[in-house]
């Protein structure tokens, strides 16, 4: 029996979330687990799109929720739980990159970060094998292109392009002006366009 996944974004969900957070704040660990289930796929996707490596994404995922669990008492309902958790994840992913850079400095594998991860991917809109292979190639290209972005550009591009979160919410998440987010998105798009130019024109 496979579980059924339902994503409802509504007042009802906000009400449920509100109640779950309150219970989690009172130390109800089960309520926290329910909160995890409501937001964790997006956290994992975000971490993956920002790092290009599944193992790193899993580390960021775990670190994010452990931090959220420890910090839930400080959550003040100024944003949704999802926004709050994604903010933690973005910061984790940015820090991860700094750490990784340090590691890469001493490493010879710098060119292929996380290359073994690609087979695990589930790619949308694919039916036949050749398309899957091609999508795998595209994904590698996309990850390579993502590496040309700065941490913040990458965060904004991941959030807006892959997670489809509106600029307004991103600004709240990153605690900066909407204009800054727009600017970062613009620069990121230009760099992506440049990095993928040869590939896209084929």
């Amino acid at each position, binding site marked *: *029996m496979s*579980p*059924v996944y*339902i994503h*409802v974004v*509504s*007042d*009802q*969900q906000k*009400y*449920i979330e509100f109640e779950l957070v309150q*219970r989690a704040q009172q*130390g*109800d*660990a*089960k309520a*926290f*687990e*329910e909160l*995890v*289930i409501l937001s*964790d*796929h997006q956290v*994992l*996707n975000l971490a993956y*799109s920002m790092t290009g490596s*599944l193992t790193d*994404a*899993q580390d960021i*995922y*775990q670190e994010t*929720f*452990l931090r959220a*669990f420890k910090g839930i008492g400080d959550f003040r309902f100024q944003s949704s739980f999802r926004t709050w958790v994604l903010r933690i994840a973005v910061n984790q992913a940015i820090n991860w990159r700094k750490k990784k850079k340090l590691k890469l400095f001493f490493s010879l594998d710098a060119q292929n970060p996380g290359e073994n991860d690609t087979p*695990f*991917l*589930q*790619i*949308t*809109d694919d039916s036949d094998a050749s398309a899957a292979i091609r999508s795998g190639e*595209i*994904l590698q290209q*996309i990850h390579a292109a993502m590496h040309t972005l700065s941490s913040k550009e990458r965060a904004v591009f991941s959030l*807006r*392009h*892959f997670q*489809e979160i*509106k*600029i307004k919410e991103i600004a709240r998440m990153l605690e900066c002006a909407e204009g800054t987010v*727009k*600017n970062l*998105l*613009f620069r990121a*798009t*230009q760099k*992506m*366009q440049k990095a*993928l130019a040869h*590939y*896209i024109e084929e």
Partner: protein
Amino acid sequence: MSTCRTIKEKLVLYCYDELSDTEQAELEAHLKVCSACQEELAALQKLQADVKSFSVSNDILQPTRRALFYKLRNMSAKEQPSSPWWNIGKLALQAGLAIVLVFFGFKLGKNQSQTGSNFAIKDLLTASRTISVDDGSISPLLVGIDKITFSSDGAVEISYNTLNKIHIQGYGNDPAIQHMLHYALLTDDPIARLRAVKALEKLASMNKKLDDSYFTILQRILNQETNIGVKLTVIDILGTVQPQPQVQDILVNAMLADDNQAVRLQAFKALLGGEYQIAALENVLTITKSDSNTYIRTKSLELLNKSKGTSL
């Protein structure tokens, strides 16, 4: 005239549907006459289409989640060594169950008794309530409402829109049913909302009273609802229950502040019919005596005069 850079930036925002209506209209007008921008837009759209969203598969997500839960449980176990929750978690892990509580909540709920007054799915499974769930894999808290029925003996049944139908039955004064009705009253689905207030109306007229928890929600509905029928039903509910300060406040608010005449009038009538102290309403009546509705206006004046007459 905009500079090249600002237009380029707007093209990106246009692709992500992030422009205001006026900006969008301006840009579309510009696009009609500028072939360079048309090409730029086509290139951006191609990028968008090629850099498709991808998602980490469930096969990866599930073990990642289990690992996290395992770690969380260890952490809480250290904090509270005798926590029954941990023991259950351990058993569940040993049994190889996927600890996806929302989806397996029904099954776990059957075997455990827990402390705490908070509502949980397991509460629905106790005592005289009946729930039919074919495979118990969905939390009713996360799904839409199909219909709500109210029978003459005071029983409420809520059916949920799920792959396998979920029905929740119980008496109106039952905390679990109350809780589910709260959700129904707050749902985004206008029809489900209407059904919820109708069920509540029957409940109120039968018992002549409602649990206090409903009043905050009813106030919220009056503030936000767009369907006048729902609002009027809410007023009727408030008029049916025994007079009390909280209800009076809500009715006075509606009478003073609602945009709709019919709602104001209904609230006014509910207040008059509910044996509220007219003297206590004097301040309100001095405001409503200039209401745009004739009935409210004349009746307010009449009551004011009467109350002055008695106090003199």
